[in-house]
């Protein structure tokens, strides 16, 4: 910096003008050199951020031509197979965007692909944060904002793909209506309020339009800003490694290194979205036809992020309760309420509460700026994998008709298997993941305890061959040693056999038991060295003899 003595006047003038008035200099000085840690998984959230920017821009383009009206018109555009067909103005204008507006179809496809990548990006980012424990203190609030963002993104998607008023989106709208009307007591009122009368009415497209282009994006923008500011202020978590601790951030400064990387990543995101939009057709509304409530097509699926709700609806047995034995007093359609609300409730509430439940179980009130490696908190990782399995089975079964048709499996069997799998799958995933985590911890302990294979084969005087192990490289060892025991609440009774306060009631006892299972050190890194503890150790050579050979 010292050689930059002579600042050109053209830069110095406006700079000091701004500096004197809004204090830009100190602000930039403080923030331009902000350090960002380097790990590929830290970029995943940026997929969602950049997709959102693309969505705002392409969406603005679409609003120039889209007419959110359910007035009936007779199509007279260039798409022959619909000529003379009665349709809503919304659908006609979406066709106009696709076939008459220059670049309109590309923009529509960019918007839709970016929407898919927006939600998918949020999901992979969220999984990264979850599995590395980056939601822990002080970042719980930012995690909550993230969960809110994901929920709003689903609503934004639903209102968005309903707008063109094509036959496929109409099927989604019908399910939305079915869910709304299934709510006890208030269902009919909510439905009539939402649709402005009997389904489908003439208002819903215009209302969804307001929500989709104004209210929800506004909230999304505000929350994304808050998300970014909090991340900036709290600093990014970093992976454990050499020279990294809870009080520093090791990485590259925002300017120029990280800014360049982030800029490049925006270009990549835009390239992928534009590439998909150019080469892969998405939401071909002209093929679906205009919406009429009488028509429904095979293969009616929502966009992927709604797939888990579709799947739960398809899996649900046809249960319903008629109050007082007759439908006169009202029907409680469990076959709609349960699949519509319960999986969503489990997933979203579970996500929102997890940081707080984990803190309750571990009693861990410290700040964490070093990310966990997923294997080092096996129960968290297993819970995460169980949730992914639960979600994944529902998601997969949302496409059970396509699976059935493509793989020639009986549709009925996909449903029966799915019903079992959605309950059993998470348990199996939990057990398998837990074992894998412990296995990986053991291999870490082996690297610390015995070193890594050197590739040198040595023959001992009595004829035995062994492979010489060398200590792990410094950075690898530092990475492995980033592991720390998961805290546990104090449950031990004192000398008189009285448990500590808060651990006496049934809830306290449960907390103590959970803490004992969840926390602690399952496979200590340094255990077993020289004690003949690890099996690998024993194979190499007996007793302390191997020290000289393997290190």
């Amino acid at each position, binding site marked *: 910096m010292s050689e930059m003595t002579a600042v050109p006047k053209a830069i110095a003038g406006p700079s000091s003008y701004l500096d004197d008035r809004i204090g830009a200099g100190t602000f930039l000085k403080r923030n331009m050199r902000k350090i960002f840690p380097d790990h590929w998984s830290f970029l995943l959230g940026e997929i969602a951020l950049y997709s959102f920017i693309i969505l705002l821009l392409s969406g603005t383009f679409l609003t120039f031509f889209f007419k959110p009206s359910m007035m009936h018109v007779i199509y007279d555009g260039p798409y022959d197979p619909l000529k003379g067909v009665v349709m809503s103005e919304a659908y006609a204008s979406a066709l106009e965007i696709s076939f008459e507006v220059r670049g309109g179809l590309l923009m529509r496809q960019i918007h839709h692909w970016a929407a898919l990548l927006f939600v998918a990006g949020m999901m992979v980012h969220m999984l990264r944060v979850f599995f590395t424990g980056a939601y822990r203190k002080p970042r719980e609030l930012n995690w909550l904002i993230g969960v809110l963002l994901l929920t709003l993104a689903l609503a934004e998607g639903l209102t968005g793909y309903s707008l063109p008023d094509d036959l496929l989106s109409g099927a989604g709208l019908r399910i939305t209506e079915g869910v709304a009307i299934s709510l006890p007591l208030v269902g009919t009122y909510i439905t009539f309020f939402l649709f402005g009368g009997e389904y489908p009415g003439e208002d819903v497209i215009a209302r969804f339009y307001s929500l989709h282009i104004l209210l929800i994006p506004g909230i999304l923008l505000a929350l994304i800003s808050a998300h970014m500011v909090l991340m900036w202020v709290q600093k990014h978590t970093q992976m454990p490694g050499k020279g990294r601790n809870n009080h520093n951030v090791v990485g590259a400064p925002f300017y120029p290194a990280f800014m360049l990387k982030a800029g490049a990543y925006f270009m990549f995101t835009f390239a992928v979205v534009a590439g998909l939009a150019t080469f*892969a057709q998405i939401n071909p509304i002209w093929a679906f036809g205009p919406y009429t409530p009488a028509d429904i097509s095979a*293969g009616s699926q929502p966009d992927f992020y709604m797939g888990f709700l579709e799947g739960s609806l398809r899996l649900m047995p046809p249960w319903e309760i008629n109050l007082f034995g007759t439908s006169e007093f009202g029907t409680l359609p469990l076959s709609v309420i349960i699949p519509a609300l319960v999986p969503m409730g489990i997933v979203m509430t579970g996500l929102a509460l997890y940081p707080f439940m984990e803190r309750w179980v571990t009693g861990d009130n410290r700040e964490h700026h070093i990310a966990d490696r997923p294997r080092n908190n096996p129960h968290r990782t297993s819970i995460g994998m169980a949730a992914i399995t639960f979600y994944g089975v529902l998601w997969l079964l949302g496409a059970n*008709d396509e699976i059935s048709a493509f793989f020639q499996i009986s549709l009925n069997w996909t449903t029966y298997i799915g019903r079992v799998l959605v309950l059993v799958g998470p348990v199996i995933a939990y057990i398998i993941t837990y074992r894998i985590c412990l296995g990986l911890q053991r291999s870490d302990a082996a690297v610390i305890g015995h070193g890594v294979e050197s590739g040198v084969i040595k023959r001992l005087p009595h004829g035995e061959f062994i492979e010489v192990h060398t200590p792990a490289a410094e950075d690898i060892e530092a990475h492995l040693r980033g592991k720390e025991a998961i805290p546990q609440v104090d449950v031990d009774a004192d000398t008189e056999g009285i448990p500590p306060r808060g651990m006496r009631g049934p809830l306290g006892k449960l907390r103590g038991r959970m803490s004992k299972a969840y926390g602690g050190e399952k496979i200590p890194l340094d255990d077993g060295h020289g004690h003949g503890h690890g099996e690998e150790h024993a194979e190499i050579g007996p007793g302390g003899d191997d020290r000289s050979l393997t290190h």
Partner: protein
Amino acid sequence: MTRITARRRHPLARYAVLLFALALVGGVYTLLSPASRPADAALASGKADDVAEGKSLFQAHCSSCHGLNAEGTSTGPTLVGVGAAAVDFQVSSGRMPAANPGAQAPRKPVAPWVNEDTTRQLAAYVQSLGGGPVVPDKNAVDPAQGNVARGGELFRANCIQCHNWTGAGGALTLGKYAPNLNEATPTQIYEAMATGPQAMPVFNDSTITPEEKRDMIAYITDVREQTDPGGFGLGRIGPVTEGLVAWLVGISALVLAAIWITAKKRQAS
């Protein structure tokens, strides 16, 4: 007059009246009914000797399941009354003779003995047994004469709940399925509507008129020959393949990009 009056209480009079009435009804029906009677239909759908040829073909290739006289067995239904259109559809699409019993006979390459002549003869034989829908003529299935947009509306109202928007097909219960319409010829599409093969319902001429059937054929053939305006069609089955591509192509490519961008670490200085 008096002669009738005198004999109207004769013990045989009631039978005479009954016979007269039956003859009248039969005669009127014969004159007015549509031409789908066995003897005429055999002539309509082929030459009379086609029936004899068809019978021997039937006994050689079909009778093990459908019975020697097409009366049906436990493994195959009776073919009396299914009509020439059903035979032409099933045999020309390779579905019959079926290779093995299952939920549904799939479209497959036709049997070696099947050609235009043998199909016509077989159809003529089955037609001679009990009538039924006949094979449509060229004009009835000519897509060029149909109204594509009207056909689209009819297609969406009647077909897509099983066959999908663009005729990509879909699953039905217990291993049955609605096949993809891309391979079906216009004649086969017509015959399928007229005869309702396998899991498909019958759309007879009073439900969907022959002109409307032609409109639908026009729509189906127009849409399937269409070049997808937006790039690769992804099987034209909607959001399932789109979601798959978003993850497998989109997210994978971006993850690889992220790994590549962060691979070059800043050297500690």
